[in-house]
């Protein structure tokens, strides 16, 4: 038995089977959710380096598999990442029945996750770009439900993500070439620029983020949330791989200054545009941009604390985006408009979903006592010690999102709030309330999740 078979081939094979039975949505959703949960729990409990006792026999778990001269490797140090990725996918797939996603979401979503895990396992890791691209292509049927034309957001997403792959592959080759043959040192700048460009395409870094708000409006909010939480998680891991592997990149002041500038622009512009939004879906898109900006800012600090903020920030980001996407999907499934000016009936009909939506906006903005605050506050404080103007712009971005939250609050309670018949079903209420409780608990007691998330950095021995 091999970790590659269990965590890559099995989910991929199941996703193919689920695609064949895609019309049985109940079956596909629960199968994908249970399989993801089992894989996450197994990754958490099983030590890859020791024998596994099962049915009175001992089995050795091989951690690598050779394919066509290259290797796929999932070692014990990758367990935290596997728990995170499959835990996240379980979190999203269990929510799928409540979000009422389209029938292609779970089969293609599971296949996409298997490809993303393969991208983290392939050696040399530069070839990860190809697996990421295959994952992106698998996401297209999830984003455009059958029977509807493709919008501009989906096309831009496809273009930008596809253009990222050649940049990463050629940039990675150039970086390798300079390491092997120092006489090619002139390639270093080109390599850095190509890698930067590739990552900018993939992570939707300024100025390549225009597709996010468009996609958020065009596609199902839950599918967009799934995509925009999983894809950046894996791409950021690849970025850390690059930093871990190449001393030149780790020591490049230019790179970290670039990350800081891009992060600040993303946070500031996303927050400011969010302040003027009157559509919850677009607001969700801008919140995703703001979150990516903060992750870049955390990395740009070039310190251990910056890395801790980066890893710790995953948890509130995932919970926040997941809950927000679920709340939007619940509203969409009950034909409640996403426009602020048409929200007068929303609170009366869907009090839990609208309240949770507000809560996630404020958490993403960094309101105290919610999950986002314990990471945002020290991050901004440390950013201030590096550059006061950058910290002020980042703070302005947070303020913009909070302002949008207050505008939404105003829109909800424009009329006298009377709760009549609650339209959310029990499953939706249970998920929304559980998520909201986690959001609040993580804001009040952040220690445990910050400590656990720092395990994500275990596999990067050379970082800082």
């Amino acid at each position, binding site marked *: 038995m091999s970790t590659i078979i269990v965590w890559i081939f099995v989910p991929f094979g199941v996703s193919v089977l689920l695609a064949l039975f895609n019309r049985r*949505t109940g079956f596909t959703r629960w199968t994908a959710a249970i399989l993801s949960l089992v894989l996450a729990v197994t990754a958490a409990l099983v030590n890859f380096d020791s024998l596994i006792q099962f049915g009175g026999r001992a089995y050795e778990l091989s951690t690598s598999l050779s394919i*066509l001269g290259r290797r796929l490797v999932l070692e014990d140090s990758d367990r935290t990442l596997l728990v995170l990725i499959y835990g996240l996918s379980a979190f999203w797939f269990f929510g799928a029945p409540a979000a009422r996603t*389209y029938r292609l979401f779970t089969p293609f979503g599971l296949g996409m996750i298997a490809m993303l895990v393969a991208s983290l396992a392939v050696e040399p890791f530069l070839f990860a770009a190809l697996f990421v*691209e295959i994952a992106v*292509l698998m996401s297209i049927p999830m984003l455009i439900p*059958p029977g509807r*034309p493709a919008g*501009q957001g989906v096309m831009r997403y496809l273009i930008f993500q596809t253009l990222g792959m050649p940049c990463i592959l050629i940039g990675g080759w150039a970086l390798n*070439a300079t390491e092997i043959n120092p006489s090619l040192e002139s390639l270093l700048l080109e390599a850095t620029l190509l890698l930067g460009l590739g990552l900018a395409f993939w992570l939707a870094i300024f100025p390549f983020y225009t597709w996010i708000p468009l996609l958020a409006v065009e596609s199902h909010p839950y599918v967009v949330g799934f995509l925009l939480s999983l894809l950046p998680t894996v791409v950021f891991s690849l970025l850390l791989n690059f930093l871990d592997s190449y001393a030149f990149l780790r020591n490049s002041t230019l790179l970290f200054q670039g990350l800081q500038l891009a992060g600040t622009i993303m946070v500031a512009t996303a927050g400011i545009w969010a302040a003027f939004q009157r559509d919850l879906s677009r607001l969700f898109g801008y919140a995703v941009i703001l979150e990516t900006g903060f992750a870049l800012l955390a990395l740009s600090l070039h310190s251990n604390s910056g890395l801790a903020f980066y890893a710790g920030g995953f948890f509130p980001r995932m919970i926040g985006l997941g809950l927000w996407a679920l709340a939007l999907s619940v509203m969409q499934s009950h034909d409640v408009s996403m426009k602020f000016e048409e929200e007068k009936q929303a609170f009366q009909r869907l009090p839990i979903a609208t309240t949770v939506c507000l809560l996630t906006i404020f958490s993403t903005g960094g309101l105290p006592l919610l999950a986002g605050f314990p990471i945002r506050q020290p991050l901004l404080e440390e950013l201030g010690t590096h550059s006061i103007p950058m910290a002020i712009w980042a703070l302005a971005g947070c303020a913009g999102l909070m302002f949008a939250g207050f505008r939404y609050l105003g829109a909800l309670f424009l009329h006298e709030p009377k709760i009549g018949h609650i339209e959310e079903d029990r499953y939706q209420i249970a998920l929304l309330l559980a998520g909201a409780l986690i959001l609040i608990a993580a804001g009040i007691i952040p220690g445990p999740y910050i400590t656990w998330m720092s395990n994500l950095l275990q596999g990067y021995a050379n970082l800082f």
Partner: protein
Amino acid sequence: MMEPALSWIPLVLLIASSLTLLISQNWRWSIIALAVLYLGMFWMITWQWSLGLAAVKLVTGWMAGAVLGVSQPGNALEETGFPRLPGRGFKVVTASLIWVLAFAIAPSLQKFFPSETNYVLGAIILIGMGLLQLGMSHRPLRVILGLFTVLSGFELLYAAVENSVLVAGLISGVNLGLALAGAYLLVNPEEEETP
């Protein structure tokens, strides 16, 4: 580096096919142009790789074209924004700028990519023409054909520096996946019922 005999023929094939992909409003001509483009690319890659491995590119490209062809794109290439003749004229003028740019930068790129002048030239022209196509339209078939053009240019460059079988296989997988995604965008089968 010595240029192989008749190395200008695949270059002409690449220029002609990428121009056809840019200006054609008939999907049949576009699919034929895509097939010719992959033929030219295959010809050039045989200068770097063994014939068997290079044939993977040709077969994949033709299969991608076949997948797009069977989805019967109909009028998926017709532009509403550009009037027919002036639109084509404009595209030819912009394409000629790409050719000039490619001829200008190919020699400097040759020091990074150790291959023949026409080879690097072909790769740059394909990347440029593909980007031009992507910048001019958001229609799904045009976007897919533009992405194929860009990727084939990249494949030429990458083949000069990397000859791993796994990478060749994965790039073929990406091409086929792109064709299937394109076919999905074009076919768009039936109305979805939300359960």
